[in-house]
């Protein structure tokens, strides 16, 4: 890994500050950056949202497409989650097919949505065994200043909450510009990530903080007290007690973010 000296020095600064109980931008350890959600940023999308979390900037767009059901679930629709780390978002992102970081992020956001059962897959059935709705949730990074996981999760949920179901004409063809109603969400799952830096638990890490982190732990929570996904990442570890603290933080932070949706 080509080591960028400036980044390494900044990471050292982050660790120095954290050890003194501070962060470089004076946030509290559990404080998120300013969140700004702009909905419906794309007319052609069935639902979309742009999320700014401090300087981190991501876009999520939804397309609902009639597709073939899986043979083992003939009356269930499905979702497909993808993320692309656009090279315009960071000097470290390169064009090309998704790599492991993108794949991990997409799959964790996918699990949070899928396992929370916020979408009733049976309601996404058009005709049993023949056609079902596939909800494509595609996310693009615009600027990476850390915590893409949470930003993408917020963007995906915001976009889903705006999603209109396209109207279908003959032979399951979509009638352009017409809609049959809104997509119903039974829950609002949100992913909140806690990072461990110099032995301290810190939320919403910016890019420099991510460079300094030992490990991270993401938890997708729902407003009715369930957890739908975990993901530990990074080469460090967590004690069982720290995991419990992360879970508490994820519930608390998701509650705050949900108010801003």
């Amino acid at each position, binding site marked *: *890994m080509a*080591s960028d000296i400036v980044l390494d020095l900044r990471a050292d600064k982050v660790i120095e500050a954290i050890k003194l109980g501070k962060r470089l931008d004076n946030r509290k350890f559990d404080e998120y950056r300013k969140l700004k959600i702009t909905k419906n940023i794309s007319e052609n999308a069935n639902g979309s949202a742009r999320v700014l979390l401090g300087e981190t900037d991501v876009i999520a767009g939804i397309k609902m497409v009639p597709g073939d059901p899986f043979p083992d679930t003939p009356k269930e629709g499905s979702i497909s989650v993808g993320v692309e780390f656009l090279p315009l978002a960071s000097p470290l992102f390169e064009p090309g097919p*998704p790599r492991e970081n993108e794949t991990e992020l997409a*799959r964790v956001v996918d*699990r949070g949505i899928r396992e929370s059962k916020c979408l009733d897959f049976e309601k996404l059935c058009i005709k049993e065994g023949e056609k079902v709705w596939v909800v494509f949730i595609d996310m693009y990074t615009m600027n990476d200043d850390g915590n893409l996981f949470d930003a993408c999760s917020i963007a995906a949920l915001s976009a889903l909450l705006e999603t209109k179901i396209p109207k279908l004409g003959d032979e399951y063809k979509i009638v352009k510009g017409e809609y049959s109603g809104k997509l119903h969400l039974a829950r609002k799952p949100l992913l909140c990530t806690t990072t461990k830096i110099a032995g301290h638990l810190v939320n919403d890490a910016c890019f420099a903080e991510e460079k300094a982190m030992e490990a991270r732990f993401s938890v997708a929570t*729902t407003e009715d007290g369930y957890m*739908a996904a975990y993901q530990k990442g990074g080469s460090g*570890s967590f004690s069982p007690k720290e995991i419990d603290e992360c879970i508490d933080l994820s519930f608390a932070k998701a509650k705050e973010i949900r108010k801003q949706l």
Partner: protein
Amino acid sequence: MSKKEEKTEYVKNGKRLDGRGTEELRPLKIEVGVLSRADGSCALEWGQNKVVAAVYGPREALPKHIQNPYKALVDYQYRMATFSVPDRKNPKPGRREMEISKVSGEALEKAIFLERFPNTTIDIFVEILDSNAGTRVAALVAASAALADAGIPMRDMVSAVGVGKAGGEIILDLNKDEEDAPDAVDIPMAILPRTEEIVLLQMDGLLTPEEWKKALKLGLKGCKQVYEVQKEALRKKYLEAEKEESEPNTETATQEEGE
């Protein structure tokens, strides 16, 4: 993913569908040093799961620009054979394999003294030959035994187990039927057993914090049971090797034995 129409009882009178208790592992068999060309290797059978792991390295990381002058890289490749699942798997590595490889490699990084081997890579290849739920933890258990077999210095072996929920019950080491329960929750976890540091933790399904507390306790216990089997496998190979060495047998015990 397929939902069962009829309501199944996953635990009846303390027994599961396959006859195990709620806190019981499937039979686990580990053997190290099974591949002569690899620096370390391991064959593992865990219930129906069948896994082979090989370790190569530390060796020079190439191309040169990927080298880290401070520590070794860990390249972990989890792959499933096409015939290892009920339907033929596409041989092309999928998104799932990519994600599992990433988090498993990170889990091992904590265990290995990477800083002793700057500019090198430690390559770990794990192939799943047969599967029935819990393959990523089986792979990780095999991989860390193979690392030990390769003589790579580690803080501890990584031990792993799946824990979760089926039919409202918190159970250890879920099999495929249990993983397909309508309310199934799957929690793969890996720890460094001596310190109980958690190095891999994933979950999908709907779980409450109370259920998690139970699952965590059960998972830690399960990991430690697995740990004993791993240690036993290493003891078996190396105590035998020691015995052979003490006997003046000329042609055995070449450098292929590793450490």
